């Protein structure tokens, strides 16, 4: 709920909106300015949400901010509005409060870039490894974990080097096989600990707590300086004039960001918020960057072939089963979903699908496998089955 009114002057770091629900996070103004509108706006995903529009003052000081009140770590992290910055935007404070009966033995930081095209976590690990590791220590202390691991894919040896250079030996920087989706939570736990998170259970069941490296850095800032989450690193890439990683204020419109990087180059057919494997394609560029927006990727028709209807033949090559990180049989679920045979698709566990998109990516006949699996998932959910 907005806690400011139109015409009110706000300072950088000031609370703009807050909700009491446990799984939620407050939002702070990233700039000094004046509230011009309290209403709603569209998000990248197409949802209409409550919003506050702040017109910036002419003078901005990005060094200072109104700090949040610091209590214990969980309270501070909650007050600072920190959410999972890998894209899921799950409130970090909730993750820091695992069920009491489960012991967290390992804190794993996710330094595997979640998707192709994105390099924001890579740059963060290269440029600010201290913040990342400081966050890791705070998290480990809070949940009482003895072991801290940063998992980084082997194609980023410089990031591994950078983290190792500042780690004091109590942090393991683990080089992991470069494969998508190595950065998916359950797959990361499997790669690092060799344990499978049982179906329907939290990662805590495997004794693990996973946070994205950017989230860890934000937690460090909140605990050390009371800094609320107001900005993040966003990879802006693809068909733009100056691709790169930019530190972007939360709430910046995608259209403004595109303009800032010099606009589009060549024909752009899809603009994706996040990565091209899981991110939504924007219908409208006047949507805000949020705390979970890891990238803005502008793709042209050559990179994005049109989505097929689903009647391409499955040649049964088996590539989808080989790449599925959940060991599902996407071709089978896809074929059954295409024929609306929901009851026969259900035993193949469509609800376990993490929607990484690897099956639809790899399919040589371009069957929209993930899109079909989503139909099967929806049919299961409609029956009241919980994922």
């Amino acid at each position, binding site marked *: 709920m907005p806690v400011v009114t139109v015409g009110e002057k706000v300072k950088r770091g000031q609370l703009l909106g807050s909700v009491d629900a446990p799984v939620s996070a407050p939002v702070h103004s990233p700039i000094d300015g004046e509230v011009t509108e309290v209403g709603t706006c569209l998000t990248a995903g197409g949802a209409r949400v409550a919003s506050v529009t702040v017109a910036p003052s002419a003078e901005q000081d990005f060094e200072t901010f109104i700090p949040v009140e610091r209590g214990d770590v969980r309270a501070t992290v909650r007050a600072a509005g920190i959410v999972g910055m890998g894209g899921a935007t799950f409130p970090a404070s909730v993750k820091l409060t695992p069920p009491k009966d489960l012991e967290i033995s390992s804190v794993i930081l996710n330094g595997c870039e979640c998707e192709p095209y994105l390099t924001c976590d890579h740059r963060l690990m290269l440029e600010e490894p201290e913040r990342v590791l400081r966050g890791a220590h705070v998290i480990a202390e809070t949940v009482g974990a003895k072991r801290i691991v940063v998992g980084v894919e082997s194609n980023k040896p410089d990031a591994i080097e950078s983290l190792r250079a500042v780690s004091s030996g109590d942090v393991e920087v683990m080089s992991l096989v470069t494969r998508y989706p190595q950065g998916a939570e359950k797959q990361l736990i499997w790669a690092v600990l060799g344990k*499978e998170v049982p179906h329907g259970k939290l990662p805590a069941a495997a004794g693990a707590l996973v946070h994205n490296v950017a989230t860890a850095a934000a937690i460090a800032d909140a605990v050390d300086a009371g800094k609320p989450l107001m900005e993040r690193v966003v990879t802006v890439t693809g068909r733009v004039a100056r691709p790169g990683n930019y530190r972007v204020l939360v709430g910046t419109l995608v259209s403004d960001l595109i303009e800032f990087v010099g606009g589009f180059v060549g024909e752009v057919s899809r603009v994706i918020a996040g990565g091209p494997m899981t991110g939504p394609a924007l219908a409208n560029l006047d949507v805000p960057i949020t705390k979970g927006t890891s990238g803005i990727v502008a793709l042209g028709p050559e990179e994005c072939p049109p989505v097929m209807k689903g009647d391409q033949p499955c040649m*049964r090559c088996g590539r989808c*089963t080989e790449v599925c990180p*959940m060991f599902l049989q996407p071709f089978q679920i896809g074929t059954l979903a295409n024929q609306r045979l929901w009851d026969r698709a259900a035993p193949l566990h469509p609800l376990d699908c993490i929607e990484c998109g690897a099956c639809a*990516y790899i399919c*040589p006949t371009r069957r929209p496998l993930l899109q079909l699996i989503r139909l099967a998932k929806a049919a299961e959910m409609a029956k009241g089955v919980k994922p």
Partner: protein
Amino acid sequence: MSEDIEKPRLIVASSPHIVAPTTCREIMLWVVGALAPAAIWSMVAMGVPAIVTYAACIGSAVITEAAWNAIAKKPQSLSDCSAVVTGLLLAMCMPPMTPWWMSAIAGFIAIALGKMIFGGLGWNLFNPALVGRAFVVMSWAGVLSKLPNKGWFATLDVAGTKGLDAISGATRLAIASADRAAAGGYGYDLVAQYRPLLFKNLEGSLGEVSAALVILGGIVLIVKGIIDWRIPAGYIGAMGLLSWAFGSDPVFHVLAGGVLLGAFFMATDYVSSPMTKNGRLVYGIGCGVFNAVGRFFGPMPETTTFAILFMNGLAPLIDKAFVPRTFGWVKRDEE
């Protein structure tokens, strides 16, 4: 958004937005490329009859698919190149002197009854090329067995036989089989056959001219990740092991009778083979077992076709038996 930036026409679609470069067509062209050395060498070695057989099989397969699509008012599917692969594989399991009309009928049956009647690519239960070959073998067994089994340029070459020179044109496998059946045997030297079977074997079908080139093509497909090594490994392993167990020479039996073409190119057909790694190994072994048992105890030694067709029929059951365990569904009973 400022007005001086041109607004692009945005397409909204659900993720993923990018796709891997490998397409069905590319995979099929790799198969054609892998078969090319063996096919070209067979044309050189066998001459015009071989070229006629290739042309009749491939032409008939392609025309049948195009005609079927046109009559059934379905979108044309020739661009996926699977009909070319079927025609090519079919030709390679036909003897070079096969009458052209018989090759054309085989191509028609392969595509029409082997593939399109099931719904086209991906829906057939059996390998289309082998369906075409099986049809011809069963329909005209007498004609095929009386064919002069050589191309125009071939010379009589039944190396290593004693007192068997009269059986001109018989395949090495048939000679070996007769040798085993005869009391005491003729002393047919199997080891002496390795060399011709590997490099220039003019007695047999077009895919048997050079085992070495077939192996080369198979290795290319395995290295490129197009076929799974488990199927040829299981097939060749089982074939060799059983041939040895049945008291014969394992290398000869792997090289002869189109086993290599079957193991690398026929049994590995995506559509008619299992989907899972373990399933593929079991399926490959099954092909080898039925091939060997058929060869040593059946009425005729050329059992590759029927061994693979039989295992094609079992492939869906193998898939059912080897459903992969979903990630996280561990020790459910102990939870």
